[in-house]
């Protein structure tokens, strides 16, 4: 069972996801989590139901040009429809991540950073640092703390750290107060996606950092 603080942070993450106010890489990470894991699908669906109810109850604000708007809708040609591709993702990468990085698993240009640890840095996107990581079975990542907040999603294998066990589809949340020492489980490399607050104190399109969002 996750500790209370982790649960609160995941709740804050899901709430912002439902509201549509996460930085893009964090939104992709939650999308991928929902694709891989059933754990929070019911909660997300519930919050969306309640958000729909809230929309129904909101104090309405009349459109200045309501009649003209209605006319334009009737007269305009149907918008181009591009329905989402529903074929299940093949292989390791959930569709949300494959679409986001624009490549398949075999195309990932891993770089070895230290023995038993590879990564692929996507750089800073919407105020967040984004990377995929690969940890050799049984390998411990040296202790590191984060500046700001870090979200990780396990895509394959599993790791354990002070806060618990994380397998495919699980999200781990860490902040700079956590002395974080993940150890990949035996037999299978642990592959995942990490989204961290950008180092430059730059903010993305929403003007907020993960730390603001998850400081629950």
């Amino acid at each position, binding site marked *: 069972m996750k500790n209370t603080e982790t649960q609160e942070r995941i709740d804050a993450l899901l709430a912002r996801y439902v509201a549509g106010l996460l930085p893009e890489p964090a939104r992709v990470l939650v999308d991928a989590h929902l694709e891989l894991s059933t754990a929070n699908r019911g909660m997300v669906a519930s919050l*969306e139901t309640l958000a729909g109810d809230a929309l129904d109850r909101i104090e309405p604000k009349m*459109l200045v040009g309501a009649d003209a708007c209605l006319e334009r809708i009737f007269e305009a040609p149907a918008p181009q429809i591009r329905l989402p591709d529903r074929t299940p993702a093949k292989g390791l990468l959930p569709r949300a991540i494959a679409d986001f990085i624009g490549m398949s698993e075999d195309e990932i240009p891993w770089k070895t950073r230290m023995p038993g640890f590879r990564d692929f840095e996507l750089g800073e996107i919407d105020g967040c640092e984004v990377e995929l990581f690969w940890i050799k079975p049984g390998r411990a990542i040296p202790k590191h703390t984060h500046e700001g907040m870090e979200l990780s999603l396990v895509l394959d294998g599993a790791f354990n750290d002070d806060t618990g066990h994380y397998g495919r589809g699980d999200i781990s949340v860490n902040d700079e107060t956590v002395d974080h020492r993940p150890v990949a489980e035996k037999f299978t490399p642990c592959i995942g996606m990490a989204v961290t607050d950008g180092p430059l104190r730059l903010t993305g399109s929403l003007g907020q950092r993960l730390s603001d969002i998850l400081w629950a």
Partner: protein
Amino acid sequence: MSNAEEFARLAGRVANGRDKAAFARLFSHFAPRINAYLQKLGLPASQAEEMTQDVMAVLWHKADLFDPAKSSLSTWLFRIARNRRIDAIRRDRSHLLDPEDPMLQPEAPEQADEQLDAAERDERVRRALTVLPAEQAKLIEMAFFLGMTHTQISEQENLPMGTVKSRIRLAFNRLRKALEEEGPL
């Protein structure tokens, strides 16, 4: 007939008969609400109206994609408005006509009994929300509907952070309990 049923019926007439009168009724209810929602999230009035038009145009042209067994019309429109706003920020229109949510795209195709569960789940969480103390319900709604951070809520409501956190935690726990009550969803 409840409001939700009436809206679903009108949406059906838009889908099947291109019924302008039915659409106009849905427009008069939902357009001002979507507009209010988008302005609450900080969009300037002119942009909010333009986006409201985009969202309602999806309903006019694609009402057949709305499935009342899966969600209420207001939830369906909420998702479209939310995704449209995300795409406007990203300058990417790829989500505009994706009224379905990623969570409805699990790895395995959705089973018919999952749809039955949706109605039951909605009823359970609505019941859970109505029995929440008002101050908890209000704060959790500020989080998932308006996307406010704990800090923003604490400032706006003039409440200590600890109070905000504990009320939201209690509210989430109640919702989670409601979801877990009768088997997995």
